[in-house]
Every structure is written in structure tokens, then in C-alpha cells.
């Protein structure tokens, strides 16, 4: 794989774009990119157990959401995070309570990783009154002030400026918090991303930009949409350091995240992490995925699945019994089933809700 680059080197690299470079990267298959790194950082048994549980919760939750969508219980758009679980879990393992998270529309995994209640998330997907937005937001628009999760945004790239604004507020308040601002490889081509990069570095804002490169913006592969496919280099002209990270390995994610967050928190300014990841499912539920081969998907699933890698480690390295893992699986399934049960039986919002939450009452 393309090893994580030294931050300083990336920042000081002022040469013109090397046209051969991205082409080379693109020539590699996803599986090649995710070839095992020789010295992967290690997790303790507890850390692997934690990562396993958290990632499995997202996986099972998303599978259930897909199922409910198929049954017509979830409407509109529904973008699943399956395959990308290691990114958000590794990031969360490196952040501390109070750090803010904001992302685009593929947001269910981020919400669960932030500790939001699966029932509230699933009930929002089904448009019920117990949903996080009382049924008025849907899959792409959920928030939790309590968990410092700021959405859930449906306009590609908008969350990047908004997340930079969260960091602006952190710097203004000098509260020591860091804004973890996620975007996909598609959003990374939006103009406002670079406006935000500029101001974040100019004002040394505490923000980590996490570019989840799952290789396809809807159906357009990175190579067909991006002149510079190495997203870690997207901040070079602003002097923002960046790294490419194996986003399928929760350990490398956490290690890079720790470095990036420390950089941002110390007042050094923003940091870019390109997470090389992969989504197994289509862009949304209605995506037939004709733009890639079945082989490409199954090879990633078989050889680089973030959850399977942890599971294997738990058994082979940490001596965890299969039965214990099965118990975890059962527990996760129960949590997810409960959320589905809640989300399908919770009533729809009261019709009066149509007219609430449009404006706040002015303070006395």
C-alpha cells in the first residue's frame, strides 16, 4: 500500500502535480492498495474487542436499514456505510469527548460511532416521531447536540465549510476541541472545500479533514473525476499536511488520526487524512453498480474486510474464543433488532409537527 507519508514532507512538497503519480495509483486495483502493511500498529485485546463491537454494530445496523428499505419502511435516499466502518471507528478511538463530528449524507455509521442511540437513528430513517429529528430530517439529516454530532448534510461539500465553522468556534472559544470534518472523494472536488482549506490554515483552525475515498462518487470513479487522485495532497498549496491511510485497517486509521488530531489540537492548524476505503453497497439503494465488477467488490470483501481482519486477530492473536465473539454478534443483532422494532412501531409524527421547529422563539 501507499504508506502514510510524512506530514512535513507533504507540506513542503511544492512541486507541480506529478501527472504520472495518480495514474500509477489508479492502475492499482483496490485490493493491491490494501495489501497488508509490514509494520501495522498493534491494538490491545480490549481495543480490538471495542473496535470489533463498534464496527459490527454499524455493519448490522446498515444491513437492517437496507432490509427495511427493501420492505418500503424507509423512504427517499438511503446511503449505506458498509465496508467503510474502520474509518469512523478508528477516528473516534483517537478523539476525545467534546470533539465535534460532521459529515455528508452517508452518515449512519458516524452517528452510531458518536454514541447516538440506534433506536433514534433507525426511527429517523423510518420517519417516526422517536427519530433524532422527530421524523423531519430523514437519513441524511440527523444531529445530536449532546453527542456533538453536527449532521448529516445532504449538499455535497457543504459540511466542509460548516465543519470548518465548528473549528472556528472552537478557536474563538479556546475550548481545546477539534472538529472532525468528513467528506467523500466526490465532495473533495467541490470549490468550497478549498475555500475552507484556505481559511482553516490561514487562521490555524483545529480541524481534521477526513476524506473517505471509497473510490466512487456515485458511479464516477476517482480517476474519471479527479485530476489529482492522491487526496492527501489536496492541501499542499495551502501548506496543510496530509496522509494517505489504509482506511480498511482500524489500527492504521487510529494511528493516523491520533497524529492528525494532536496536530490540530495543538494550534498547528488543519490536517488532511485520505482514508482509502471501499463501499460494498451501491451509492444508494437504487444503485445497480454497473460501474464496477462483482469481482472487485468480492475481492475487497474477502481479503480486506475491516471487521473480518479484527475478528481474525481477536482469535489468532488475542486468544478470544469463537463463542465469545458469537455472543458479541448476538448482542449486536439484538440491539439492531430492537432499533428496527422501535422504528417500525413508533408512530409517525403528529401532524402538528409540520408547523414546529421552523423558527426559534426569541429570548425574552
Amino acid at each position, binding site marked *: 500500500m501507499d504508506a502514510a507519508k510524512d506530514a512535513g514532507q507533504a507540506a513542503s512538497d511544492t512541486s507541480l502535480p506529478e501527472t504520472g503519480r495518480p495514474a500509477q495509483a489508479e492502475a492499482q486495483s483496490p485490493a493491491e492498495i490494501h495489501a497488508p502493511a509490514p509494520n501495522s500498529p498493534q491494538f490491545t485485546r480490549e481495543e480490538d474487542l471495542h473496535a470489533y463491537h463498534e464496527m459490527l454494530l454499524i455493519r448490522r445496523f446498515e444491513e437492517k436499514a437496507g432490509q427495511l428499505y427493501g420492505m418500503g419502511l424507509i423512504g427517499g435516499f438511503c446511503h449505506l456505510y458498509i465496508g467503510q466502518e474502520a474509518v469512523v471507528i478508528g477516528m473516534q478511538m483517537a478523539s476525545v469527548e467534546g470533539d465535534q463530528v460532521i459529515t455528508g449524507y452517508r452518515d449512519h455509521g458516524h452517528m452510531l460511532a458518536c454514541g447516538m442511540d440506534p433506536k433514534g437513528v433507525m426511527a429517523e430513517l423510518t420517519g417516526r416521531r422517536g427519530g433524532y429529528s422527530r421524523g423531519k430530517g430523514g437519513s441524511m439529516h440527523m444531529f445530536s447536540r449532546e453527542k456533538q454530532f*453536527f449532521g448529516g448534510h445532504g449538499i455535497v461539500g457543504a459540511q466542509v465549510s460548516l465543519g470548518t*465553522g465548528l473549528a472556528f468556534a472552537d478557536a*474563538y472559544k479556546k475550548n481545546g476541541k477539534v472538529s472532525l470534518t468528513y467528506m467523500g472523494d466526490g465532495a473533495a472536488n467541490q470549490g*468550497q472545500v478549498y*475555500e475552507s482549506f484556505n481559511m482553516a490554515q490561514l487562521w490555524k483552525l483545529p480541524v481534521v479533514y477526513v476524506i473517505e475515498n471509497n473510490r466512487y462518487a456515485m458511479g464516477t470513479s476517482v480517476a474519471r473525476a479527479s485530476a489529482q487522485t492522491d487526496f492527501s495532497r489536496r492541501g499542499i498549496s495551502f501548506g496543510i499536511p496530509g496522509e494517505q491511510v489504509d482506511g480498511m485497517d482500524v489500527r492504521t486509521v487510529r494511528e493516523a488520526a491520533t497524529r492528525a488530531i494532536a496536530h490540530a489540537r495543538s494550534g498547528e492548524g488543519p490536517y488532511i487524512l485520505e482514508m482509502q476505503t471501499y463501499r460494498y453497497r451501491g451509492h444508494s439503494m437504487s444503485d445497480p453498480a454497473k460501474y464496477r465488477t462483482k469481482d472487485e467488490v468480492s475481492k475487497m470483501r474477502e481479503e480486506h474486510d475491516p471487521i473480518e481482519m479484527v475478528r481474525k486477530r481477536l482469535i489468532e492473536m488475542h486468544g478470544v474464543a469463537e463463542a465469545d465473539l458469537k455472543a458479541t454478534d448476538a448482542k449486536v443483532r439484538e440491539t439492531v433488532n430492537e432499533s428496527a422494532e422501535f422504528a417500525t412501531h413508533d408512530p409517525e409524527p403528529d401532524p402538528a409537527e409540520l408547523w414546529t421547529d421552523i423558527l*426559534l422563539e426569541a429570548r425574552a
Partner: protein
Amino acid sequence: MATDILMPALSPTMEEGKLSKWLKKEGDPVKSGDVLAEIETDKATMEVEAIDEGVLARILIEEGTEGVKVNTPIAVIVAEGEDVSAAASRGGAPKADAPAQPAPAPDMQAEGQAETPAPSAKTQDDKPKAPAAPATITSKAPAPVMEEFPEGTEMVTTTVREALRDAMAEEMRREEAVFVMGEEVAEYQGAYKITQGLLQEFGARRVVDTPITEHGFAGIGVGAAFTGLRPIVEFMTFNFAMQAIDHIINSAAKTLYMSGGQLGCPIVFRGPNGAAARVGAQHSHDYSAWYSNVPGLKVIAPYTASDAKGLLKAAIRDPNPIIFLENEILYGQSFPVPKLDDFVLPIGKARVHRTGKDVTIVSFSIGMTYALKAAQALAEEGIEAEVIDLRTLRPMDTDTVVESVKKTGRCVTVEEGFPQSGIGAEISARLMVDAFDYLDAPVLRVTGKDVPMPYAANLEKLALPNVGEVIEAVKAVCYR
């Protein structure tokens, strides 16, 4: 040959300024590029450079003179060797009363110009109009009806510009979460000098110069507001807010609803809106109707300085996203503002600016200048117009308008924006529902013409509404 040096215009809307200092004296040789004098407006101080070579023969306006109209001769330059005394005899008005001799200004400020009604003010849409009389905007607004503060309150004559600045400064002193961001708000003191002095008082942390990236900094402002900060985002003009409109609409206006009430967005987007003078189609758009269309926003468009102050303070305190539409031509106009420690006005309340029994004229922002001048002229013809200043466009105070129309039975709306789906169209629709039985005539709209704003002075005047059109529309609804 002697050449007059004229008082220059520093901006498209400058009418007059102060000749603060002469840097050359009579008899000095000058060459192209030499700084001759410094002039000052309420917005800026600028240098007057010579563009000819020769000798500064006569100074016509002494330094320290205020109110020097644009295009007034301020000095005479003669060619080297030319007879200086000859130039002196040529030099126009005597020094003392030079300001009383304004040369024709390039903009619309010709007071007392004949105002003949445009022949086709009744139907504003679609068809090309016969040339209308030039719009006339008085720089001296009539005293508004004021009833929102205790009787006997001391009034201070204040420009809209100063009122806006005072409102921001007072709110920034009151709450640390309030900050200003935008292009040129800090070091430059504001492109239109609205933020003058704020950097000096509050420092660079709270008065933040941004790069020219409206989309990005609007998003940053909204993100900061999500955390409870109270940003005032200045757009150099609302034309540039088009770059940021996604964040204004999709991020600021909708998130409270989409979050089930969790995530409010206490932010003020403010800046000049609508036509200034001679700045062409891309810098003259009136967005009043656009923003007033969006649930989740409050939209304010004040006319007087006291409304600008009281409503901007209210806007900054409001927990919702506010669009605060100012007007560049109004910035320099003076109005009485109550001297009170904390003058805050309610958002969403129209004001009866002038009472009358025969017809209701509804307007807002700079439209009020046409409405009030028309009302004055109509009064001389025996038609008593009630003039309502909406002040807030969303939520719109329909009650005040309906109450007035119940009394007058007739209504004319006045705005600079385009006719289709405009504020006047909205008022007309509401009156049809809420005051149908009281209407003695169809509601007529006086609006900007249905064309992109032209640059040429004569065409720009034709594109904007004018007092004559308001008068004609009023007479039409009164069947006079």
C-alpha cells in the same frame, strides 16, 4: 489653456464631500500624478491627483469646506507661462459659496426635476415602457412617525451607516459570542464603512477579515452559529451572496427543522441590497422577494436609521438566521435616532410612517423614498395617502396593511425589485384574501422594470421606479 479641477466622486453614490486639505498652494507647479488635495466623505478619505501639467493657478474651495458637491470646480490649473491672473478671472464661483454651485452630478440627484408620471405605471409586467421621468431621491428624508420609544426622548441625527455600526458595536459589547466577519470589515473599516472603528474596539478576534470566498465563509459562519456563537456575516453586497446562497438556504434556514428543533442557527447575514447607482446588472439585484420566500429565515429591510439600528440589534439577538437587507443609497442619509441605552425594535412589525385616509401605499427600504415623496405631492392635490413601511418582509405584518386598507379601500405597493413574484405581488394576494370586501380598486404595483439593470444613466432611471409612477398608480386606484 486653463483647466478646472473638479470635485471627484469617490464612489457611485457619493454626492458631496469635504475638501479637507490642500497639499499644493497657488502658484505651485504641478505635474500629472501629483497629489493636489485630500477629500473626505463619511466613507473614506482620498487623494485628488493632478492629471495635467502646469501651475496651480487658483484654489476655488478652501480647505476645510464641507458639503462640496461632486463636479464642483475646486481649482484651476494653467499651462506653464500662461497668465495666472487670466485664469483667476475665469475661475467660476468665488471661494466662499462654491458649494452652492453644483455641477450636474452623474447620478440621479437632481432635486426639483420635473416629475411627470409614466404613462403605463399600472401594469408593470412584460411590455416595454414608454420613457418615464427620472427618479428623484431626496437626500433629506421627511421625519417619520415615531411611537416606539418614550415621548420626550432625545433624538440624535444619525446616518443609516452610523446607526448600523452603533447597533453592532452595542451588541458586541453586550455579548462576547457576537462577532463580525466578511470581506474588508476590519483593516479597511468596511467596504462601505459600516464596520468603521469596530476592529479598533474589539480586535481581530471579533472583527474578522475574510478572503473573497463567500461560499466558504458563509458556511464557516453557519457552522460557528450551530455551536452557539452569533456571527454577523457581512456581504459586500447581496449580489455576492449568490455565491453563498446554498449555506443561507440549505444550511442556515433548514437545519432547525431538519434537526427536530435541536440545532438553531443564530446568524445575521447583512449588507447592501438592490441598486446603487450605475453599477450594472450584476451589482444591482434586489433580493427582497427571493429571501422572503424561504421558511426558516427572517428578512428585514429597514428604511430609516432608527429602524436600521433597532432592528439590527433585534436581529443580532434573535436565535434564527436573519437576512438584513440594507441599501447603499440610504447609507449616507440622516434620520433622527432616539438616544436610548438599549433601543431594540420588534422584528415583524410594519409601521405607519404617514397617516392618510384615501389610499394606502406599502413599501420598504429605499422604496419608501418614492412612496413618501409621492404622498407629499399627492397631499398637495388633495389625496391623503397613508404610507406603510413594512420594515420586515418575513414574517410580513399583513395586519397593519389590512387595517389600513380597511380604512382607505385602495392600495399601491412600491419596490425596486422585479415585478414577477415580488413583494407587491405577495401583498396583493394577501389583500385579495384578507381585505377583498374592503377594496374599491385593484391593488397596483410600482416596481423595478422587468429587465436586468442597465448601466447607462438614462436607462437606469427608466429601469427603477419613480415618484411619478407612484403618483399615477395612486390616482389610478383612486379613479382620479
